[in-house]
């Protein structure tokens, strides 16, 4: 949608063909999966190798922005039927609750615990409470970025339609 209007203003008259670009749509789907997988990988590996909640969240948002470029906002809202504001609230709640829950087990605020468990296929897997805190960061970052971008996109769609009405 936004790409379309951008192109329109730049003087490209026949943008509809551009928008129904099958290649773009198909590649976007595939690349989206790759980026999301990479984002999740980055997130989980964060405690031992480069990565973490913030980068992971940003990448997830970037992947969805890519979809936004290939499809329009309505499709995206159908694909991801969550209200971003609720996701922000959820993420923030999670990041506050993890340090608080630690207190129930007699630890001072924000003293993370680690646990190593044996899983059938994966072998020894470490479980950190820090991960749950980071999930909160991940969700908040991704949701906030998406909220702002989709808001701006909606604004633009609206101002486009208003302009069309006037002319």
């Amino acid at each position, binding site marked *: 949608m936004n790409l379309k209007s951008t192109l329109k203003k730049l003087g490209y008259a026949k943008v509809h063909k551009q928008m129904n670009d099958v290649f773009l749509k198909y590649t976007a789907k595939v690349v989206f999966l790759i980026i999301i997988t990479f984002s999740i990988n980055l997130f989980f590996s964060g405690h031992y190798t480069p990565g973490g909640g913030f980068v992971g969240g940003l990448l997830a948002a970037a992947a969805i922005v890519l979809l936004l470029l290939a499809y329009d906002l309505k499709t995206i809202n159908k694909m991801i039927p969550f209200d971003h504001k609720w996701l922000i609230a959820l993420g923030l709640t999670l990041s506050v609750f993890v340090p608080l829950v630690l207190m129930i087990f007699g630890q001072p*605020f924000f003293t993370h615990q680690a646990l190593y468990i044996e899983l059938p296929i994966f072998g020894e897997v470490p479980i950190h409470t820090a991960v749950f805190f980071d999930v909160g960061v991940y969700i908040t970052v991704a949701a906030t970025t998406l909220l702002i971008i989709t*808001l701006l996109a909606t604004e633009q769609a609206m101002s486009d339609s208003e302009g069309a009405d006037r002319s």
Partner: protein
Amino acid sequence: MTLIHFAILLPVIAAVFIGVLYRYYKDVHLGWFVLPVPVLIVAYLFTLIPTVSSNQVIFESMQFMPRIGMNFDVYIDGLSLLFAILISGIGALVVLYSIGYLSHYEKLGNFYVYLLIFMTAMLGVVLNDNVLMLYLFWELTSISSFLLIAFWFNRERSIYGAQKSMLITMFGGFLMLGGFISLSLITDTFSIRGMMEQIPAIQENALAPLAIILILFGAFTKSAQFPFYVWLPDAMEAPTPVSAYLHSATMVKAGLYVVARFTPLFAFSELWVWAILLIGLVTLVWAAFNAVKQDDLKAVLAFSTVSQLGLIMSLLGIGALGVHSGASEQVFTIAVVAAVFHLINHATFKGALFMIIGIVDHETGTRSLKRLGGLMTIMPISFTMTVITSLSMAGIPPFNGFLSKELFLEAMFSISEADFSVLADVSVLFPILAIVGSIFTLVYSIILIRGIFLGKTQPETPKEPKEAPMLMLISPIVLTVLVIVFGLFPNILSGTIIDPAAMGILNTSEPLNTEISHWHGWDSPALWGTVAIVVIGALMYLFRNTWMPVYRFGNKIFTINNLYDQGLMYSRLGAEKITDGYMSGYIRSYLVYIFTGFAVLAVITMINTDMTFEWDTASAITIPEVAIMLIILAALIAILVTASRMVSIIMFSVIGFSLSLLFVFFRAVDLALTQLAVEAILTSLFLLAFFHLPKRARHEERKRFRLNNMIISVAVGATSIIFGIAAYSNRLFDSISQFYIDNVYDLASGGNMVNVILVDFRGMDTLFETLVFGLAGLGVFILLRLRVNRKGENEFEEHA
């Protein structure tokens, strides 16, 4: 985490479930689900009474932030237990009452969530040993009180009252935090028990008077003492259950609690003793005097509450005097016992009175004394309860208010007889003030009974009056029965709860063995005091038309309320003026302010400190780094030269991506990754916002504008470079990275230092950064969606 901690936090935990429940299930009144919470807590607290009344204290620690000494340490002695039982007990009754008072159509979810938050906050205040935690919960009571007063937020008076109460109590609370911090500077601990052990050190320290004044500010604002009481009458805009609970029975007594708690600590100071005693007495008389002229029933009760709080405060003052003079005489013990006893009594009779006023308001539709009258035959149960509780408030036998009022008079008389060199001249005033205050109390008590229930039936009430449903009557009936029971058998309280609480205030471990009796003999001055009060009060009521015009002499300009209003208005106008002076609405102006400020500060620092530059320790510059710097430079020049915005945006992201490459060369992989992701998002944001950007203004082409910008940017760039090199050359401290390298696995069992710092070592920072991030997103949402429509009203646009 022990059962006590859980009991304190139970309301907040319940609030989460109540809030969710309300969204999906509305068939049953929400209050029924809330009711078990205070009932469970009060039941649990009752099991602690045997321990506490056998002179033991309960101490349970829970680590919160041990590094700065902020721990959730629960300390229960008689005093805290008494308050906790009042909070949860009255809380249970108020919740029950509110089920009848608030209809299904109100925002019940909000109401009960706020109420539960308040319950936790208040329990936290009275059961904490750590002053920092106490302050935390203290402010939480202010916030929940604010939310509850503003419950009907489309009424202007509600908003006004809520804002007033929050401004005044938070002003005091913040000063109190200063007091706590100065105390901890003296004693090096945040624990009240720890401070108690260091009384001599506090006594000698010059900071002590400051700490006393600051803590008293907190206590006086919260307990609505003169001259801060002005917020309480306006807080009556809250729903009546809230007024009964927060603004009469519990929250306003938090100040009394703090005074009682810190009396052993500060009793050495004359300032502490006299401030409490005098402010308490002045409040008592002034508020009782003002209560008589009110027309709104809740305003009468508000002023009456203020005056009763002043009474308890002055009693605590006498108790403090006892500790101060070191004489553990009968008088002081009596005063403290009277204070504790009156605290309980006030909660019972004032709670009941508030609930009855709520019933009258609910059933007739008005609270104005002028429009009410003759309801005795229509509302017989309410009438009976009003008579009992009002007479108890006025100190008429055989109700409980009489007993504590007599103890109060006795204490006031004995202190005037006792020989204190400091107050020999004014000591006669104390009993006189006490009696004057009590006379006015009697007068407004009679006005309450007579104005609502006796006299001619007023035909013009907005609703057809009828007796309230049983649901609303249960709670006031329970409290009224307590008024009678405590009045007839006061000694069921004295051993179990009054003595331990009084011992907590006096900080002794000797049993007091208090016996409260109804009859003190013919020679008791308190008896004649009571007789005088009744006779003069009755006469003043009968001849009220002759002296009531006295209230007309008051000047409307020289009132505390006016001072508050004007102060608020002028501070707002002043702030607006200053802000309008520099907030132009253009980001470029703000950037100019920020960068000019930075450059000026940097230059000043450079002049004042001698910097050295060492090039030996710097690492060698490699060819890839030079190449990237050249790319960045080229992109920069392109931005400066080009006239097209699109080109600038693309060049801008070229700089960003090159920077992330640079990070890779510096082996900061995390940074590089983050920079890449940020850059991708930023570019798409820029492109989205592209057409919202205004057209290039003409002044951007002006030479002066460009010259100014150039000077500022060159100055910022040059100073940054110089500072960077200088900071690298002169290290003031050792690098902390070694600590993280050593401990990253042992303390946090992680491998990636950067991420471990983010989520663990400095997790608090990340938490708040995340919060800022989320709030910024919501801020953008509000800015883009909230439009001001043509009428100037705000409205949200909803579109798909």
